[in-house]
């Protein structure tokens, strides 16, 4: 499970994103227990204090809850999981739009390119 970390982004945020992704894709299910701090630190090969912070932040965002004595669990609240999904999709869209804008596409051209793509054709440079 070792992640290739991007050193420029805090490690705790990258691990949070990985856990969020696992929740959205259903790898981790609502109500499921997260592994202990120690175990997760060994899995990711990071300092346990970093995982401690990951757990604190996840709980602050309402994604997990702690049951005293038994551990940390993923929320069963569908709304929170859905909004996680939306939030992550926005990130994907933003990266895509930024990339297209960099290539010189206007918003209309981007929409047309996406439509063309779904119709099975390629975004044809001659038509735009």
């Amino acid at each position: 499970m070792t992640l290739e970390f991007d050193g420029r982004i805090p490690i705790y945020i990258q691990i949070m994103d990985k856990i969020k992704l696992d929740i959205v894709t259903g790898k981790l299910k609502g109500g499921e227990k997260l592994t202990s701090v120690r175990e997760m630190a060994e899995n990711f090969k990071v300092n346990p204090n970093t995982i401690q912070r990951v757990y604190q932040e996840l709980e602050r965002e309402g994604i997990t809850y702690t049951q005293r004595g038994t551990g940390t669990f993923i929320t069963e609240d569908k709304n929170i999981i859905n909004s996680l999904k939306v939030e992550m999709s926005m990130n994907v869209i933003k990266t895509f739009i930024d990339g297209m804008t960099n290539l010189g596409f206007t918003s209309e051209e981007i929409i047309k390119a996406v439509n063309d793509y779904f119709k099975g054709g390629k975004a044809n440079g001659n038509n735009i």
Partner: protein
Amino acid sequence: MEIIFKTENLTKSYMTKKALKGVSIELEKGKILGLLGPNGSGKTTLMKICAGLLRPTSGEIYIDGLVPGLNTKPVVSYLPDVNYLYRWMKIRDAIVFFDEFYDDFDVKKAKKLLEFMNLDENSKVTSLSKGMLEKLHLTLVLSRKAKLYILDEPLGGVDPVAREKIIDAILDNFNEDSSMIISTHLVRDIERLFDEVVFISQGEFILKGNAEELRIEKGKSIDELYREVFQDA
């Protein structure tokens, strides 16, 4: 928060050369500090003072509230950057040596670590490669139950695969009751272990802080920061 390690305006001079020029730092219990700097920047001098092997010229230093010396020997487990085992020893002898020397040495743990490191108890110390020797030293140092582990260049001269093993061993044996100071100039492989980092250059701390905060603030990895700061060194 409990402070395990603290220096204030610490200096060390060798004859005319100033190896440490008034460094101040604090480390909380349960944290790992990365001491980062090129060769000759003062890392080893600072670590030797922590281990009670050198006396500071001026300033203050406390480990668990004590001045380093005989009192702190049981508190500190120190990995020097040189081999200090006798040439006649087999790995087995080194374990006995440590067990007799330190009350807090855990033979069971040492044997487990040897296995993890793929080291054979019957090997002679002189037959070990640089990487294997480093693994053996680390095994001995981590098998003590100390409050502060001081590791001087644990990755020096070790190939990337062995580096992974060493980092794993450090992580597995770290717990919230102990603290660590790790010096290195190979930052990339090990930066994910650090809570705090301090950059040392020519006997002075030129940058220090929480590793994650530095990543946010500078938008760079600790390794990139290191290369930027020490590009001329």
